[in-house]
């Protein structure tokens, strides 16, 4: 990135709070329920109804504020944010304007090998809007209000992020914390975590050309990163040409991988907030604060420090392991019964993470027992199974069927062959089948031996002990010379 320019990024993250019912009514929150089945007069915005705050949503919000080292406000109230849109049945969203649930707080991220503190501005409670569908028919849009009234905590960062990578780091850390304290499932596919980004590119702090641009529709951390990269490039190019950057809202198009101006949203910024008369004010009591503080689990950062210290892991490995409490617990269970901590780490951040990424799964969905991984590792360490075969053939099968690794290995005939008699036969076969390669070796081309080793591995379907094959092959070829 061009260091001539100053980039500042701020993020607004909406976290869906993990309560059973909506924030102001008793409708159940159930993802995937039939359209408009989880609605009542309150969340439909029918006249004459009154919202009542869900105590659990309030506690979860408070818990998040405390875990993020924010200060709970002594007294909070709710306000109406007025705008017209079909996904908002009342014509206003109940949110918090000037007395939010929490103020301040901070998050630490790792950037270019050093720690950087990103301060938080505030965190407030609000209700979610409904869902609009545009592709059911060409002539009309369709509204499902199941989501309307779902409790959200909006967490606003100070504009202290400087690169898309830092924004990505911030989100990863925020998700890890929120998930570990049980405030939200943080399931991205279910929209539990949604993000808007503010970005401005300027020549220097006093430059008036670069204005803040808000980007919406960022549904994944990858989209946040891509949208910020695109937007920084777009704004930098405009500044190079001496153009002013208007303050506006832009929409990220994941298919086209670009941001588009949303002219229609300009006027909508006039939200005419005023206090929600249907809800009384709330005092956050010290008793409730103490209760939440006492029940907060070890936070990811603390856990990472302990892992590094107690298991002798690198900061990097410890950081990766503690981003999900499911993975962290799994690692600890494995490590308690097996001294090869680094081997466990390599399996978790290697094959296991790769599998999760590819299948878009959360770790918990694997239902992998710690003993199973340890048994697999022991098969490799004792030489009965090659690492490659363990990773590529046995492990995926174990994940799919939850069977014992040794059983899978035996059934599929994948046990590593180290027996010299069996290996010698394959080696003799390879040498006989490739006289040209053998003569290459004789004339001094050492790499020819590797080709023959490859032939043996192929013949054995990967079960031959590669170290042993190399050793025996070299011996055999030397005898021929």
């Amino acid at each position: 990135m061009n260091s001539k320019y100053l980039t500042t990024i701020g993020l607004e993250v909406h976290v869906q709070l993990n309560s059973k019912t909506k924030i102001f009514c008793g409708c159940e929150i159930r993802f995937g329920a039939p359209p408009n089945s989880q609605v009542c007069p309150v969340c439909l915005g029918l006249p004459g109804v009154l919202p009542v705050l869900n105590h659990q949503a309030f506690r979860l919000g408070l818990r998040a504020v405390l875990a993020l080292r924010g200060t709970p406000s002594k007294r909070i109230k709710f306000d109406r944010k007025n705008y017209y849109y079909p996904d908002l049945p009342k014509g206003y969203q109940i949110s918090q304007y000037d007395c939010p649930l929490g103020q301040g707080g901070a998050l630490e991220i790792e950037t270019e090998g050093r720690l950087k503190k990103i301060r938080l501005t505030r965190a407030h409670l609000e209700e979610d809007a409904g869902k609009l569908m545009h592709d059911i028919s060409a002539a009309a849009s369709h509204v499902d209000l199941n989501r309307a009234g779902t409790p959200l905590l909006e967490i606003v960062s100070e504009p202290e992020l400087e690169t898309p990578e830092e924004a990505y780091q911030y989100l990863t850390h925020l998700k890890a914390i929120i998930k570990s304290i049980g405030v939200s499932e943080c399931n991205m596919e279910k929209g539990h975590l949604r993000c808007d980004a503010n970005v401005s590119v300027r020549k220097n702090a006093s430059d008036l050309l670069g204005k803040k641009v808000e980007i919406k529709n960022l549904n994944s951390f990858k989209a946040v990163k891509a949208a910020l990269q695109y937007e920084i490039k777009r704004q930098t190019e405009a500044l190079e040409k001496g153009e002013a950057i208007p303050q506006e809202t832009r929409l990220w198009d994941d298919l086209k991988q670009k941001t588009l101006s949303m002219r229609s949203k300009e006027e909508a910024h006039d939200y005419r907030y005023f206090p929600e008369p249907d809800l009384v004010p709330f005092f956050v009591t010290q008793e409730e604060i103490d209760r939440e503080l006492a029940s907060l689990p070890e936070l990811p950062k603390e856990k990472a420090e302990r892992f590094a210290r107690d298991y002798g892991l690198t900061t990097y490995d410890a950081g990766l392991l503690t981003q999900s409490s499911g993975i962290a617990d799994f690692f600890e269970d494995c490590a308690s019964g097996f001294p090869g901590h680094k081997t466990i780490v390599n399996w978790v951040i290697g094959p296991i993470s790769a599998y999760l990424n590819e299948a878009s799964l959360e770790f918990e969905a694997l239902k992998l027992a710690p003993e199973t991984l340890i048994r697999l590792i022991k098969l490799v360490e004792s030489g009965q199974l090659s690492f490659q075969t363990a990773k590529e053939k046995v492990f995926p099968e174990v994940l799919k069927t939850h069977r014992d690794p040794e059983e899978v290995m035996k059934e599929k005939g994948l046990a590593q062959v180290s027996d010299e008699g069996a290996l010698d036969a394959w080696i003799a076969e390879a040498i006989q089948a490739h006289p040209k390669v053998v003569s290459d070796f004789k004339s001094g081309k050492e790499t020819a031996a590797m080709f023959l080793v490859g032939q043996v591995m192929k013949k054995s379907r990967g079960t031959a002990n590669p170290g042993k094959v190399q050793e025996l092959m070299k011996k055999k070829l030397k005898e021929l010379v």
Partner: protein
Amino acid sequence: MTPPPISNDSEAIGPPLADETGGGVSEFNLKHIASLARLHFEEKDLKVFESQVAGILKFVDELRKVNVDGVEPTSHPLPLTNVFREDEIKPSLNVEEFQKNSPQVRGRFFEVPKVIEDKS
């Protein structure tokens, strides 16, 4: 959007209807407010309403003269605080029941005129 200022002890009642630049009643733009509320007025009615609303605002503006030093702000007229409900599931409404009130539906959905973001 930029987070609003946080007040701890003083209580903002939200931005006044009149322009916040301090222009007061004269800057009040009824046409703008009406369009935000999706209300349509004829130009001649607008003139009448504008002067009527301006009168109301001016009247309410008198309140600004009252000295409120040391007075606790009120955001709610009832002497109640911390009214919560527990996180218990209550039955939802039957879709046929509430769709009776809807001008237009399609299956289980409410149907509204096409809204597509104006992208450029």
